C-alpha cells in the first residue's frame, strides 16, 4: 500500500515517515502533500505561544487530556530551537507529555526550527497538513519560547493562545511589543505564584487599548497547568472561539490569509532556490565582483542583469 493511503488510514509509522520526508524536502513528500490536500482543512488548529519555560508543554499535555476526555483525537506539533552553530537541537517538549505516548488517539511530533525564524519550523505547515489529513480532530502547535517578533503562529492556527506567567518583570513589555495583537486567548499560567492577578490586569489594560479584533473580546484565563487547574475553562474558551470563527464566517478569512501567505512563502522559496543555483552555476558573481571593486560595474546593474536572466529562463 502506498504511503498516502496509509496516512489517510492513520497508520502511525506512515504519518511519521511522511513528516520526516517533508522536513527533508524530499520530492516524494511534495507529491504526497499534493495528493493529501483535499483531505485537509478539517482539524481545529490551536497555537500555544509564550516565553521560554512559561508552561506551554505542560499546558499542552493537560489540554490534550481534557480533549481526550471529550472524545477528540489530538495531534501535537512541538517546536524547539535548532542551534545555529551546530545545526543540532534538543527537543524536550515530550518530557511533559510522557503519559500521552501510549494513547492511540494522540500523535506527538517534535520539530527543530532548522533555521526558520518565526517561532515555527520550516515544515510545521506540512506536519499539520499530514496530521489533519490522517484525521486528527484537534492539532495543537507549541511554538518555541517566543521573544517578541516570532509570531508566525498567528498565520498558522485558528486560535492562538498566548501564555504568560507572573514574575518575568519585563515580560509584559515583550508582550506589548508584538504578541499582544495575536492572542485570541490569554493564559496567565503558574497562577499559584504571586503576582498572577497583576499580570491579568496588565493584559486587560493592554487589550483595552486595542480595539476588539473582529468582534471577539479575547478572554484572560488563569491556570495552574502543573496542577491541572483552569484547564476545563481553557478548553471551553478555545471551543467558544472556534465556534465564533465559524459562526461569524471569520474562519474563511483566516484560512484565506493563511493560504495566501503560504503561497507567497512557497513562491519566494522556489525563486530563492533558483537564484542560488543560478549564481552558483556560472561563477557569474565572482567575475562581476572584481569589476565592482574596480568601480567598472555597480551592484545595481548586476542585480538587474541577474534578475533579467532568471525571468527569461
Amino acid at each position: 500500500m502506498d504511503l498516502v493511503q496509509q496516512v489517510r488510514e492513520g497508520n502511525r509509522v506512515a504519518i511519521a515517515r511522511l513528516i520526516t520526508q517533508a522536513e527533508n524536502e524530499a520530492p516524494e513528500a511534495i507529491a504526497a502533500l499534493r495528493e493529501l490536500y483535499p483531505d485537509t482543512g478539517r482539524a481545529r488548529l490551536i497555537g500555544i505561544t509564550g516565553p521560554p519555560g512559561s508552561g506551554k508543554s505542560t499546558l499542552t499535555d493537560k489540554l490534550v487530556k481534557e480533549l481526550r476526555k471529550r472524545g477528540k483525537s489530538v495531534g501535537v506539533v512541538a517546536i524547539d530551537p535548532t542551534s545555529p552553530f551546530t545545526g543540532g537541537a534538543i527537543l524536550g517538549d515530550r518530557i511533559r507529555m510522557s503519559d500521552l505516548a501510549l494513547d492511540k488517539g494522540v500523535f506527538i511530533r517534535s520539530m527543530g526550527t532548522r533555521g526558520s525564524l518565526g517561532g515555527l519550523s520550516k515544515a510545521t505547515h506540512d506536519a499539520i497538513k499530514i496530521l489533519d489529513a490522517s484525521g486528527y480532530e484537534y492539532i495543537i502547535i507549541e511554538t518555541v519560547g517566543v521573544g517578541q517578533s516570532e509570531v508566525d503562529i498567528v498565520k498558522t492556527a485558528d486560535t492562538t493562545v498566548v501564555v504568560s506567567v507572573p514574575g518575568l518583570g519585563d515580560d509584559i513589555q515583550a508582550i506589548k511589543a508584538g504578541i499582544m495583537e495575536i492572542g485570541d486567548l490569554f493564559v496567565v499560567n503558574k497562577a499559584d505564584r504571586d503576582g498572577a492577578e497583576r499580570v491579568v490586569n496588565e493584559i486587560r489594560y493592554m487589550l483595552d487599548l486595542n480595539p476588539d479584533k473582529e468582534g471577539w473580546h479575547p478572554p484572560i484565563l488563569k491556570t495552574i497547568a502543573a496542577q491541572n487547574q483552569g484547564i476545563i475553562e481553557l478548553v471551553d474558551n478555545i471551543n467558544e472561539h472556534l465556534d465564533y470563527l465559524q459562526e461569524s464566517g471569520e474562519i474563511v478569512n483566516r484560512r484565506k490569509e493563511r493560504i495566501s501567505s503560504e503561497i507567497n512563502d512557497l513562491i519566494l522559496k522556489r525563486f530563492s532556490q533558483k537564484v542560488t543555483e543560478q549564481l552558483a552555476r556560472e561563477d557569474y558573481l565572482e567575475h562581476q565582483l572584481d569589476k565592482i571593486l574596480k568601480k567598472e560595474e555597480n551592484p545595481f546593474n548586476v542585480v538587474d542583469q541577474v534578475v533579467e536572466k532568471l525571468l527569461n529562463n
Partner: protein
Amino acid sequence: MAEKKIRVLVAKPGLDGHDRGAKVVARSFRDAGFEVIYTGLRQTPEQIVAAAVQEDVDVVAMSLLSGAHGTLMPKVVNLLKEQGAGDKLVIGGGVIPDDDIPALLEAGIAAVYTPGTPTSEPIEFIKANVK
C-alpha cells in the same frame, strides 16, 4: 532537497532517579548536529517505542543504570520490529557488565557503551551506520 538530519531519541528506561548521564549524551549529540528527542526519566519500553515511532527517529539511544538492561533493551528492539519500525538503530550505554554485552548484541542492540567511553564513539558509530 534539504540535507537529511539524523534524529536520535535519547531515552532513560528503568527506575533509577537521575538523568545526568543521559543529558550529557543528549548535549554531545546535539553538538554533533543531531536532532535529539529527549523524553525524560523512567520510560517504559512501550513509551520509548511509541515515541520513537511518532518521532521517526533514526536511532534509539538508551541510557541505563538500574541493571535491568538485559530485559529492557531487547524488549525495545522487539517492540520496534512488531510495530513496523525495526529499521531503527538501537544503541545502549550504562553500567553494563562485560559478560552481558554479547547477549545484548545478539538481541539486536547495535552497540553497547560502558562508562568512560568518550561520546565521540557513539557519534561516529551513528554517523557511519544511519542510512
